């Protein structure tokens, strides 16, 4: 399967919030009072995507921009790497999906995510971690994610990841954008890409994220586990063998001396 992705063109968003409604409709999410669009828009257990209205400086004046937030679906997701019960998985299509049946509720994924995406149902007796699933079921059927399909402004483009990266570069080359595809390198790359005409830092994006895939950090240490395990075993075995041999020799010598 060819990995899919979504390109968000921030310059084209009008802030209508269609995507947030589509997300609620398709995923059967509740309206719990968290505003899904506007100045106070925020992600939540029942808001998997939110369109935040940001005032940003551009060419000496303040401009309005609308920033759609949701899971970026990293190529090497830190959340999936942190999940020891395999409840979060990266699929071949691109979506990073969550299986509530496997989740033990440890919330390591929430700590691991550099973008602060996964949310928790704090008020439930059997809480789940909630986040955008990139409409994995729709993508599997060849449809676009719900939010992309309803966007009237052409701000969201769904397609094969490699083509999207090219499209983003093409638009940047035509002018009117800053030379930065957010999500191309951040956290080792993600299935969702953003392009914008104002610096991402001014739009509230986290720009101090490492470009190295986060699981690599833990892997750089954890990959030593077999070597350390075997090596330590070998050392201990060696000490054991040595001690046993020494005791044997000592005993034999003692017996000799007795004689």
């Amino acid at each position, binding site marked *: 399967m060819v990995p899919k992705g979504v390109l968000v063109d*921030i*310059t*084209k968003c*009008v*802030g*209508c*919030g*269609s995507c*947030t*409604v*589509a997300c*609620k*409709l*398709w*995923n*059967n*999410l509740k*309206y719990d009072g968290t505003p*899904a669009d*506007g*100045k106070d828009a925020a992600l939540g257990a029942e808001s*998997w995507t939110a369109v935040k209205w940001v*005032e940003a400086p551009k060419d000496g*004046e*303040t*401009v*309005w*921009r609308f920033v759609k937030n949701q899971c970026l679906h990293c190529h090497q997701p830190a959340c999936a790497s942190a999940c020891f*019960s*395999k409840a979060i*998985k990266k*699929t071949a*299509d691109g*979506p990073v*999906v*969550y*299986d509530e*049946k*496997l989740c033990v509720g440890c919330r390591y994924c929430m700590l691991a995510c550099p973008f602060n995406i996964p949310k928790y149902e704090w008020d439930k007796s059997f809480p789940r971690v909630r986040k*955008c*699933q990139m*409409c*994995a*079921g*729709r993508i*599997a*059927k*060849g*449809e*676009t994610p*719900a939010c992309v*399909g*309803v*966007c*009237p*402004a052409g701000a969201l483009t*769904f*397609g094969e990841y490699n083509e999207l990266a090219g499209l983003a570069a093409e638009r940047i080359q035509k002018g*009117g954008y800053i030379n930065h595809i957010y999500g191309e390198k951040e956290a080792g790359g993600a299935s969702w890409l953003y392009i914008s*005409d104002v610096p991402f830092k001014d739009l509230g994006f986290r720009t101090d994220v490492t470009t190295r895939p986060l699981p690599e950090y833990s892997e750089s240490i954890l990959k030593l586990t077999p070597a350390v395990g075997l090596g330590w075993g070998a050392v201990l075995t060696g000490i054991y063998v040595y001690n046993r041999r020494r005791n044997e020799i000592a005993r034999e010598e003692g017996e000799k001396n007795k004689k």
Partner: protein
Amino acid sequence: MEDHLKLEKEVTRRSFLKMMGGLGLSGLALTLAGCENNTAVNAGGDGWLPQQYQIAGTWPAQVRGRVPIEASNPSIVRDDQKCVLCGQCLEICRNTQTVYGHYGFPLINDIVCINCGQCSLWCPTGAIAERDDTEKVLQALQDPDKYVVVQTAPATRVALGEEFGLPPGSWVMGQQVAALRRLGFKQVFDTNFTADLTIMEEATELIKRVKGELKKPLPQFTSCSPGWVKFCEYFYPDLFPNMSSCKSPQQMMGALVKTYFAKTKNIDPEKIYSVAIMPCTAKKFEAQRPEMNDSGHYWKKQSLQDVDAVLTTRELARLLKRKGIDLNSLPEESYDPLLGKSTGGAIIFGATGGVMEAAVRTAYFFITQQEPPAQLLSLTPVRGLSGVKEAAVDIPGVGTVRVAICHGMGNGRQVLEAVRRGEAPWHFVEFMSCPGGCQSGGGQPRTSVPPSDEVRQKRMASLYSADVRMEWRESHENSEVLALYQNFLGHPMSELAEELLHTDYVDRGKSFKQLASEELPDKV
């Protein structure tokens, strides 16, 4: 007995727990091993989307999404919980009003909206509605320190009845006045009065333009539809010189209530709370415009705003129902004097072409000092629901006066483009933001969803038949308007009239990137 004991021995607590533990462990092992790998298909997606979006592949839906509505929009609000993304708001906004999709990206610092409220008439689930100001008005009515007055637009009297079960176009002018008195308004004035006044000012301005006394270009554009005014400010700011400087009747009434009325009745203008009942959501925006505080200038009190609150026809109906007032059971009452008399020319302001017809009647009189001939009292070419209407009227002394009428901003664009190209043969053009004019405004009852021409025609017929019934048909015959000029303003376009009844416009063309005509969507 022995068998029973044997059985008990076989399933002990220990063996049962062992069995359950074993089953659980093997189940966990199986799932961990990935035996259940349909996670991707089951992740999320247990809701629905409208059929139009259920398309395989990446084919876009024909009708999709919705219009953007800023949270602080003074005219309309949306309830996300009711929105089903049917796309009807977008259709009317983009294709009929030519607003959505007619501005360039990236946006600068405005969500372009002309506040017309047509989307609220098209929304099938009622997600888009007028911003409800009834609470504000109720509070003012309960405040003993406030002197609450109200005005009613020409078009509400042929539509309010629909909210109380009457057929479209039912004439409820008298009952509406009675209902407003029952709500506790101290004075009930008629916006028709200032519609007549608008004609006096606008016809005078037109004649001055035609005669060259006023160095402003022709054609002159009407300026009484606040949705149209904002449209012009957004998309055609270069045509401001063509715009009549007259305020809308609502704002003229607002300015007069807090000056002329307050002075005549010796009431402190700061205690007056001025409410307008309008068929229009854009009037809410208009009343809030910072320059609409000429009564404040007049009294040198900056805090005064000419109109304090605007209720749409729907909100008035809601207010009446809340207070248990049944419109049908009320007697017919008449408007309060001083600012309450009107003519047939004012009544037809509520229909597309009405402003033009009224203006032609009075302009004819102003130029010739004679009563207009009978065909000018029933100027059929300017009536009806065709998108752009034209007429030529022979007026002795100036020759043929050419007029055009358009309603719905898509039609307006055609006329405006012609004016821009310098191909406009007209002297006077009437623009109405809403298709059909005020009677089909964004604040009118949702008698048919989406709005239908059948309802529009019934309301228009009601307005035109009321015109015929009136004692006076021409605006310059209104005795109270004449008294206003005699006692207060002097004459049309006098210095005081200019201060209170005229305005200027705000260039909003820079709040977004203007599109060249070839960049506009096809349907223009």
